């Protein structure tokens, strides 16, 4: 097997990979529900959302590979980026890679991610990169539905039975420490903002806060306290769960290199 030089170092490509990896990794976590959701209808709903996110990831990884090639790097396609990168070269926030947890955990995370993706995709429609703007135009409609579906579940479970409320509060408490990373910004963000490729993630915080506050109020769930630690998944520093997830996700391509359908 030839070793692919899969380090993406172009700033624009990295900016897109952070988002693309976020979509890819959450898509994989949601795909783990296939056949395990509490009921058939929701099994399909989670599968649909996973496939929407996978479509977004494919487009973004493809575009990131092209930007990297334009910057003089190796020409990497979506499969090479998804299946042949090492853990340290994945740039998704840690939030997305956490194990799927119970149904309350999954719906709470889906809501958090949708409330973040929506303002991000909305701004990316005005990207200076026409390709990214086109991907965003399609993605924003998909994510609107993801947000509504997750919000409806959060309200039902938060304001549901004693057990569902307890599980929702536990999920919020577990997930909240990972939120800060969604709004951290660094030189990659600054470069994207300067070139018009996309917004700095820090800019999304107000939209996220107000969207989440509205749902949590309706669900009668208290908003957890913010925590100071900021995870660094988008710089390649992942949790203990990431490697295990990748070993499953990449297994086929690494066992049968170059294998296609």
């Amino acid at each position, binding site marked *: 097997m030839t070793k692919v030089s899969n380090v993406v170092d172009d700033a624009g490509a990295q900016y897109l990979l952070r988002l693309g990896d976020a979509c890819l990794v959450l898509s994989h976590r949601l795909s783990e529900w296939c056949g395990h959701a509490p*009921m*058939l*209808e*929701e099994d*399909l*709903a989670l599968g*649909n959302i996973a496939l929407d996110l996978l479509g977004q990831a494919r487009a973004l990884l493809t575009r990131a590979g092209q930007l990297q090639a334009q910057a003089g790097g190796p020409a990497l396609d979506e499969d090479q980026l998804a299946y042949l990168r090492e853990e340290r070269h994945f740039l998704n926030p840690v939030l997305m890679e956490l194990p799927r947890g119970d149904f309350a955990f999954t719906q709470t995370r889906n809501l958090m991610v949708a409330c973040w993706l929506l303002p991000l995709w909305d701004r990316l429609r005005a990207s200076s990169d026409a390709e990214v703007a086109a991907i965003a135009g399609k993605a924003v409609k998909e994510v609107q*539905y993801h947000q*509504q*579906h997750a919000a*409806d579940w959060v309200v*039902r479970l938060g304001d*549901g*039975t004693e057990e569902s409320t307890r599980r929702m509060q536990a999920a919020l408490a577990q997930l909240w420490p990972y939120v800060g990373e969604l709004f951290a910004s660094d030189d990659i963000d600054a470069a994207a903002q300067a070139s018009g490729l996309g917004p700095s993630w820090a800019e999304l915080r107000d939209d996220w806060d107000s969207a989440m506050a509205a749902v949590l109020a309706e669900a009668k769930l208290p908003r957890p306290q913010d925590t100071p630690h900021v995870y660094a998944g988008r710089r390649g520093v992942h949790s203990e769960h990431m490697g295990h997830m990748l070993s499953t996700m990449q297994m086929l391509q690494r066992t049968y290199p170059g294998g296609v359908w």
Partner: protein
Amino acid sequence: MSINQQTGAQEWPLWEVFVRSKAGLDHKHCGSLHAPDAPMALQMARDVYTRRQEGVSIWVVPSSAIVASDPGEKSMYFDPMEDKVYRHPTFYDLPKELDHM
């Protein structure tokens, strides 16, 4: 409060799903599903029955709201129509201009 809590039911209520296709004028019955309430039933109908672009509009109706004829009364209900072919408009000449009736 969900319907489950109101009724004490263990299983979610059943809903009938009607979908209108892009070219179609009417909503056609396409199946049923379980959902906790009406908004969720609509979302689930979308996820279960329109994932291959089958529709542009969905109705969901609680199955319990449908009043159905009794299969046991089928002969009483429908057999008497068997020998009343004269109810079809085929026993008189139509003006030519009508063409397809």
